[in-house]
């Protein structure tokens, strides 16, 4: 049983600190936005989780391709880790966005290209887990997972494009469909600090969780192997 590497332990603690600082910057340090008021503060986290969630998904597709080429299960473990964390981050993004949209756009949800694409991407994540759930054989599960992340990673940007198309032909029915129209604001230097630190914080947290999750996946694989050996 290998114990947790020291670097990872340090990273864990650093993450807690970074998250605390990011929270401080977002809630106290950054000035209140003139038009939107306090609710604008969710934006500092919203962008952070959205950015890492999206990159994580593309990253997972890359790991999937690597698995298909190398046929080594360690790439599958990394791919699952990336998809899992991205799915959670993406969910947080959608929830934070909704909290912001309620007072600003006057609705929890609108069928704007970005929101719709986010919802569909989240559904692709869910489908990914349901697919994996239904397959017993680890190699086959890994192969199907890799193929599906590849298909999903390709279709998500095309979905975004196609909804944009939809919107340019149709007039926006609810007046607040476009975030550029309602809810834009110029950032003061203090806001920029909070914003960029938010991005940085969630990138580090992603890396930390990713590392931990890979470790967990490796340990689970080891347990599986030990059980098999015990049976023989």
């Amino acid at each position: 049983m290998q114990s947790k590497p020291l670097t990872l332990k340090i990273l864990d603690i650093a993450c807690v600190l970074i998250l605390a600082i990011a929270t401080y910057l977002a809630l106290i340090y950054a000035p209140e936005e003139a038009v939107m008021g306090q609710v604008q503060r969710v934006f500092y986290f919203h962008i952070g989780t959205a950015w890492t969630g999206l990159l994580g998904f593309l990253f997972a597709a890359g790991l999937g391709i690597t698995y298909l080429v190398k046929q080594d299960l360690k790439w599958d473990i990394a791919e699952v880790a990336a998809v899992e964390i991205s799915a959670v981050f993406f969910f947080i993004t959608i929830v934070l966005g909704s909290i912001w949209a309620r007072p600003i756009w006057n609705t929890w949800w609108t069928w704007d290209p970005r929101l719709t694409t986010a919802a569909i991407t989240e559904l692709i994540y869910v489908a990914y887990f349901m697919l994996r759930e239904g397959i017993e054989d680890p190699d086959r599960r890994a192969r199907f997972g890799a193929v599906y992340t590849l298909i999903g990673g390709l279709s998500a940007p095309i979905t975004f494009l196609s909804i944009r198309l939809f919107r340019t032909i149709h007039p926006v029915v609810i007046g607040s469909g476009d975030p550029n129209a309602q809810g834009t604001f110029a950032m003061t230097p203090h806001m920029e600090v909070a914003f960029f630190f938010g991005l940085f914080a969630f990138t580090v947290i992603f890396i930390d969780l990713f590392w931990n999750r890979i470790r967990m996946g490796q340990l689970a694989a080891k347990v599986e192997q030990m059980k098999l050996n015990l049976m023989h």
Partner: protein
Amino acid sequence: MAADQQTSRASFLKAMFAITWKDLTAEFRSRELFSAMLVFSLLVILIFNFALELDITTRQTVTAGVLWVTFAFAGTLGLNRSMAVEKDRGCLDGLLLAPVDRSAIYFGKVVSNLVFMLIVEAIVLPVYSFLYDVNLFNLGLFLVILLGSIGYIAVGTLLASMAIQARTRDVLLPILLFPVAVPVLIAAVKASEGFLAGNDFGTIYAPLSLLIGYDVIFIAVAYMVFDYVVEE
């Protein structure tokens, strides 16, 4: 070498059409799949009539949407059945044992699934015209239906070959397929609407090129990854 390539291309096409021929022969005899897809389509159209109160004015705007939802549902039904037939009596193994390129199996199945879907669509269109008094005889619409069905079936055949190997195979296909087929459905609905409303080609150009792009990308990807889906 050139002669070698020629024979391998000949055997590729021969195997591909052998599969299509086999599927069509079996289907024209039993008509299980057709009747299921067709009856299901007609039921969906009838249900839409009650759900949407399809009066004269709404009909103009929702026809394209209703048609594509119907095609998508019927298509899933057909795809699931067509791949399950291969799995149930071990026939998929029989296909894989043949000394042909695996992608010949994929393209053979794509062609037969496409033929099934197009035949159902060819029956649904006049029935819809008749029931709702909408003229659907429109060459542009036919082109959109062909392009949309190609993209839907190309991805659907790949995902169905994964879904049938999973424990939850009966429910899995729509969950896997719908979120990644969103671009096809959106673009197809947009283009169909445009043609039905008699808009000028400039406005239809964008969704149409999106459809073509989707078809090309996903046929290429499916061609590359199909081996990983059927091999162990």
